[in-house]
């Protein structure tokens, strides 16, 4: 029984870590703020849930499980509000979104165009 729980915990935690890693990649890779917000959304939602789910499986007391799930629930309520505040502030400040997809030009923009 403990072995099954341990394996499940590993699976959930590794899944969460995978999504957080992808989030990190996305934050670096995507072209502008709006698309990067989408990448951040992964760490806010599924990655958080997977990691807390893994922690809950290791809890001795069901009260701890309830507390962990409450944290997840509160995060699910507050993180979209924070995301909205960020997106709204950028939009009102006049930041225009990039809407023409991902091209080869996006790959190597590290100061090359600015340097010319």
């Amino acid at each position, binding site marked *: 029984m403990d072995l099954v729980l341990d394996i499940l915990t590993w699976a959930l935690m590794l899944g969460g870590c995978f999504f957080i890693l992808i989030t990190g990649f996305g934050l670096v890779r995507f072209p502008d703020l709006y698309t990067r917000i989408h990448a951040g959304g*992964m760490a806010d939602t599924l990655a958080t849930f997977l990691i807390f789910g893994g922690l809950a499986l290791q809890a001795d007391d069901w009260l701890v499980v309830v507390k962990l799930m409450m944290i997840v629930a509160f995060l699910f309520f507050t993180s979209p509000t924070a*995301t909205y505040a960020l*997106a709204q502030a950028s939009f009102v400040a006049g930041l225009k979104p990039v809407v023409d997809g991902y091209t080869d030009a996006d790959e190597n923009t590290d100061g090359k165009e600015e340097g010319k």
Partner: protein
Amino acid sequence: MAYTDAKKRHGPGAPGGDKELILRTISLIIVLVIAWLLLSGIYDNTLILGFGAASCLLVALIARRMDVLDKEGFPLHLSPQIFAYWFWLFAEIVKSNIDVAKCVLFPKQYLQPSMFKIKATQTSDLGKVVYANSITLTPGTVTVDLHEDTVLVHALTKETADGVKSGEMDERVTKVMGEG
């Protein structure tokens, strides 16, 4: 002074009336007691239990005095369907997480950001907020602006944009909020 104002708004003649305020106060106390018991985990110390009960009552009293026990502050009218909606939303979150992860790994193939306006069919502010937050909560779509009944959405890929445009989430939120 504030208390009498609150009473006037909720009193006889006001929508809802005294009965609804009492119902809301009682259910708030029940929710607070459950939350206190779950978070403290103390069931055998009479003194501490007494303090817990007293603090629950005090919070309920303050909430009533502050006049926050309305439809928005304490949405008692939501049907149990909201739990079914949360399950559905969670499934959507998992699906769109995988979509966004694919988009991060293969941006050339999937990345196609777009920004568009859609109509929200909810009538109450709370319904619109639930809808806008649901859009933001699913990665791949973010609510950028919410004005009157128009929602400005930024989508990461064509699939996620089509998902919002199909209006399924809008329908479900409207149904759950009982505003359809």
